[in-house]
């Protein structure tokens, strides 16, 4: 099961690599959200956002916060996997010793 998960992770990396490889040379033009906002302002030229974001981090700060989010998610998920594994090991002897 773990080997299968590693294959699936490798598959995800392969899909990303193929995507990047097949579109190499295309100029980077913002993320999909930014493109959608650009289209919105094209469709409604006079529209101005009526509220500003609470924080407006620069590129370096944004990258830092994204990495912080990634690390927090990875840490929490790993913690759940470790705790669940310990619980499973603790309950395994009880399960095998229980009367049938």
């Amino acid at each position: 099961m773990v080997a299968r998960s590693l294959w699936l992770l490798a598959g995800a990396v392969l899909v990303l690599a193929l995507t990047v490889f097949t579109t190499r040379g295309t100029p980077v033009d913002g993320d999909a959200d930014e493109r959608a906002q650009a289209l919105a302002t094209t469709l409604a030229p006079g529209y101005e956002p009526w509220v500003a974001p609470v924080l407006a981090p620069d590129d370096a700060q944004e990258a830092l916060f994204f990495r912080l989010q990634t690390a927090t998610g990875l840490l929490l998920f790993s913690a759940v996997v470790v705790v669940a594994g310990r619980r499973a090991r603790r309950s395994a002897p009880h399960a095998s010793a229980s009367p049938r």
Partner: protein
Amino acid sequence: MHIAEGFLPPAHALAWTVVAAPFVGHGVRRLTRDAAASPAAPLLLGASGAFTLLLSSLKLPSVGGSSSHPTGCALGAYLCGPAVMAVLGPIVLVFQALLLAHGGLTTLGANTVAMAVVGPWTSWGVWRLVQRLGGSRALAAGTGAALGVLATYATTAAQLALAFPDPSAGVAGAFLKFAGIFAITQVPLSLVEALLTVAALNVLAVRGLGAVHGRA
């Protein structure tokens, strides 16, 4: 799928908040009940929230020189039921709105409906349907995850089209334009989301957290 702060007119922002509210309320009730009923619930909730936090932070390159991110909401829909994702999703959205200027508080309702309601319910419905049709658990989970994230982005396209209709082609024309932007970017990423969701389900199953909920 993050509609930026202030980017929906006030009436639209309010309307989507009203649409999201009952789903969040139902999710809170379901979460409270499940947490009290099952000793495994905290771990399932932790795994679901962590996976959503992790995947929605992965800004991945995609076709056409663009980039986007998966949502990670399908795993939670399978582990805890889709209703609970209406609570976990907004927590991640608030984090990103406050610290990253991705999304916003005024667009939280619209983004919640897209990412934490439509996506998880689509994933869960497809997951159930594929299993009922005889598909394997992995096929069902992967298909549900891929279609769930596509449904999320289709919803965002619809929300933007309603707010910014095309002067000549109307809402339908605007929807096709917005959906075109997201579809090109999101199709390969939906495949990535499917593979990562099935991998996460496998890892959790080995640790005894494989019993996924069959109910909403």
